[in-house]
């Protein structure tokens, strides 16, 4: 049998996922750090709040982006079983976003 079975496509998926995760962490940490500095130095300014919320939203969006990238990769490899499984994970994440919005409206 071929010892590389399953590894070559997984490696390209791993690389793409690595880029997505690193970009997400860097962008959100930068927003959070600058927002935090502004909040501590200048009090509750509008810009600080925007940066802090942006940092948190980017942080929350990073795993979602990773799941979307995986769906695209599995679909392009015609691995329909894993396309479906990762799509279910995305739906579950969407369900919690919907639940969050519903709660938000009630509070």
């Amino acid at each position: 049998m071929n010892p590389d079975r399953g590894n070559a496509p997984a490696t390209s998926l791993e690389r793409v996922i690595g880029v997505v995760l690193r970009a997400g962490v860097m962008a959100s940490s930068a927003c959070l750090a600058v927002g935090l500095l502004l909040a501590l130095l200048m009090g509750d300014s509008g810009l600080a709040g925007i940066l802090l919320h942006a940092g948190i939203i980017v942080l929350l969006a990073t795993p979602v982006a990773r799941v979307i990238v995986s769906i695209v990769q599995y679909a392009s490899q015609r691995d329909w079983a894993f396309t479906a499984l990762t799509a279910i994970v995305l739906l579950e994440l969407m369900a919690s976003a919907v639940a969050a919005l519903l709660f938000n409206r009630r509070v």
Partner: protein
Amino acid sequence: MPVVTATLALIIFVVGVASGSLGALLGLGGGVFLVPFLNLVLGFPFSVAAAISLTTVIATSSSVSANRTGQQLINMKLGMLLEVATAAGSFLGGVTAQLIAQSVLQRLFGIVAAIVALIMLTRLKRRNVILDPSVDPGVLGGRYYEQESGAVVTYRVKRLPVAVAASFIAGNVSSLLGIGGGIIKVPVLNAWCGVPLRAAAATSAFMIGVTATAGATIYYGRGQLEPTLAATAVLGVQLGSWAGMRFGAAASAKWLKILMAGLLFILAAVMFMRGGR
């Protein structure tokens, strides 16, 4: 919601560094230490503590996994399959956390912390690796270069339903208690499902980002996530886990684990007593 001051932010940053480095040393997220500190010492409501902790879990998962890609240690297929269960558990946990009393959550946390301590003391040394490179790992198995044996090792996944069930429970506990849930998945994957410890830990660390996102989104939408304190904790934990990974190799793992288990038993007892009132 706690009032944010520079002193409070500094305290949370320092605690974040400490729990991040302890977590990295022990292969856990820092949530197991962060939540009790925020809840018991600083007196934050349990949901506020859990929301902050979940955001640090996401940051840790993303940065650790970004650094590990390319080593074949993360089993992406197994991880994505189990994420179906863990995200479902976490969604349900996030919704039900709003309905459960703080005292019940504290008692639950006490029980989970005690179990974590017990597992740490009896950590299985099972390796699960097959050194013969001609063995087919199957769809869900994996293959990676292992430093200990200096060879490419193979493993096959066994008892998949057990792994799925454990992931669902881990997801549920994760969003209820604000921890990653790796402490449930890693021992189960290692002891019953044939996955070597390092691959189980890497795969779990990869999954907890998705797990914690489902829970954290609900807390965020509910307005229970204080952005300034979350930012402080995230930055502290990131710095701490970086330091923990750097210096972790030098520490004696055995004594570290005994020390941590002792600390966790104390935490468990305090949480349980608070919950009992």
